[in-house]
């Protein structure tokens, strides 16, 4: 399944929006205008861009603390997203979740967890719900290479395989588990090799190659939607700005990081779209301006938005506040 022009431009728009959002975020952080914990997804734009044109709003997504790119890819409203990152009352989660815990059921972004690997067992529950309800909704759960070393990964993939759940296990292999290199903490070269242990397809793809990523994701989505069961998909990628904003990145060799940044997937995608004649310069410039305007709007909205009142502290713990 090769992406058509509409899909390619949709992917480019998502990738651009992610890149620009991240750049704006880091700019505001660096200038001291905003303060928050931030796990930059810069460099990992292509994987969620593929899903952004393959999933429906009623498909489910689960992601992790490095999730801004997945939030945008699934279609979370930028105003609510920015307001949540800034801890504002009009954020998606009333300022109670923050960047690590964005939830937006309207767009199908159901859970963002700060616990490595724990989204996988929950994703099975969304898959089970779709199966029991007889719908063809699929669930994508994103996680890093490090998450494949935690017990929840094993329990979840086994159960998904046994029950043939419509779940896509999307490993965004950025080659570092916090500060630890893949080879130093993981027994296999490719995370997808682990699929063999569960008798399900395991596919490794260049997660920064838009065409390869689209095709692999499309195959996994089609398989899940048609009731054939789960796929473990591994997209090889790289994160440009460390585990958390402010870490010294000494564990990442400078030349390795430079090479990855030289191969920045978003401008590379742009060059490819022009070279292949998919779009003209004016088309791409228009997309970029549209993203920029949307981010301007979201940032202005979020900066001006009200902070929550301490009176709201004890709301939302239970359906009804306990005495």
């Amino acid at each position, binding site marked *: 399944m090769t992406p058509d022009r509409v899909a390619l431009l949709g992917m480019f728009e998502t990738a651009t929006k992610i890149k620009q959002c991240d750049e704006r975020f880091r700019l505001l952080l660096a200038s001291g205008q905003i303060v928050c914990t931030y796990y930059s997804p810069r460099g990992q734009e292509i994987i969620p861009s593929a899903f952004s044109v393959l999933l429906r709003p009623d498909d489910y997504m689960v992601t992790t603390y490095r999730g801004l790119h997945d939030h945008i890819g699934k279609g979370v409203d930028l105003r609510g997203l920015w307001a949540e990152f800034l801890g504002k009352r009009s954020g998606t989660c009333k300022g109670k979740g923050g960047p690590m815990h964005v939830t937006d059921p309207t767009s199908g972004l*159901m*859970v963002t967890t700060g616990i490595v690997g724990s989204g996988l*067992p*929950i994703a099975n*529950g969304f898959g089970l719900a779709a199966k029991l309800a007889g719908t063809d909704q699929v669930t994508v759960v994103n996680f890093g290479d490090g998450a494949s070393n935690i017990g929840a990964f094993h329990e979840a993939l086994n*159960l998904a395989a046994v029950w043939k759940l419509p779940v896509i296990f999307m490993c965004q292999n950025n080659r570092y588990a916090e500060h630890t290199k893949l080879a130093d903490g993981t027994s296999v070269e490719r995370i997808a090799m682990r699929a063999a242990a569960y008798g399900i397809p395991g596919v490794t793809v260049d997660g920064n190659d838009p065409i390869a990523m689209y095709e692999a994701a499309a195959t996994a989505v089609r398989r899940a939607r048609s009731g054939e069961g789960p796929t473990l998909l591994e997209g090889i990628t790289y994160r440009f700005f460390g585990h958390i904003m402010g870490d010294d990145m000494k564990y990442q060799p400078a030349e390795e990081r430079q090479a990855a940044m030289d191969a920045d997937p978003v401008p590379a995608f742009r060059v490819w779209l022009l070279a292949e004649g998919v779009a003209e310069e004016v088309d791409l410039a228009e997309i970029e301006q549209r993203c920029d305007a949307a981010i301007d709007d979201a940032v202005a909205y979020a900066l001006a938005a009200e902070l929550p009142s301490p009176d709201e502290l004890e709301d939302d713990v239970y359906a009804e506040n306990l005495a």
Partner: protein
Amino acid sequence: MSTATEPQTVMLPMVAAINRAIDEAMTKDPRVIVLGEDVADSEGGGVYKATMGLSTTHGTDRVRSTPISEQAIVGAAIGAAIAGFRPIAEIMMFDFIAVAMDQVCNHAAKLRYMSGSQTAVPITIRCSAGAGMQFGAQHSDMLEAWLCHVPGLKVVIPSNPADAKGLLTSCIFDEDPCVFVEQTMSYFLPGPVPVGEHVVPLGQAAVRREGTDLTIVSYGRQVNDCLRASDALAQDGIEAEVLDLRSLVPLDLDRVLTSVAKTRRALVVHEAVTRCGFGAELSAQITEHLFDSLAGPVARLGAKNVPVPYSMPLERAYLPGRAEIVDAARRVVER
């Protein structure tokens, strides 16, 4: 057949009352599903037969035996609950919830809050629990205090078959995650259970015995020990009021304080180890509210602060029993 001649109650052991509650909930609401190890009839209908017959009646889509994977069980229940189902997840032994604690405490408990109430996790986690069967240290724990410490969870422990049916029904249809603790020593003791729909709301303690000299606050099967101890105390002229909390979160503190304000003396009894047990919380609450009217400090009686031992004399020495309750109550009254 005239309704007047129909029995209002039927004698059932607690495990059968639990089965009835699930069966009736599944019949009433197609969103109710059951997940757990060996819960379907092809695997025996549960290790204690609590789910026996349910997969035959409601199908193996809705009553699903799982692998031995507690994180996967609770995680799947959470996801399905957010997507609109009302899953009942069975954790075979309370001790095993340790394996799933990340799902229980970091996810089930927190997802409503972290999402600003956009998502809810209406799951019920059923756990068989407690000592007295010589199962040793890893199949006998009472861990309710762990869970009461986590905002977002509700914790429910029935003392008799009728309450087991009514409280479990409340948990299944509650909008929040509930942990329902079933003491195995109570499973096979019969009691009258209302026929048909029976709901006991969470957060309503029951006065099981009225008295004037001290208040004994308890929950679970120890309520019955407290009642037997009260009969012995009555022979010495000590009239104990016995409260059955039924749920620890939400807690019916008003009922507790009303009783202790009257008796001015309180003893908390539970099976869990005493140190940092729920009795510590109750003792603090009672003291904070009624310090000036108390005749003495609130006393606590729980298990000894050791892992649950295997050998019978050790296990008996570990558990608080009727004799210990009588002694503790006398000390409270005689001070």
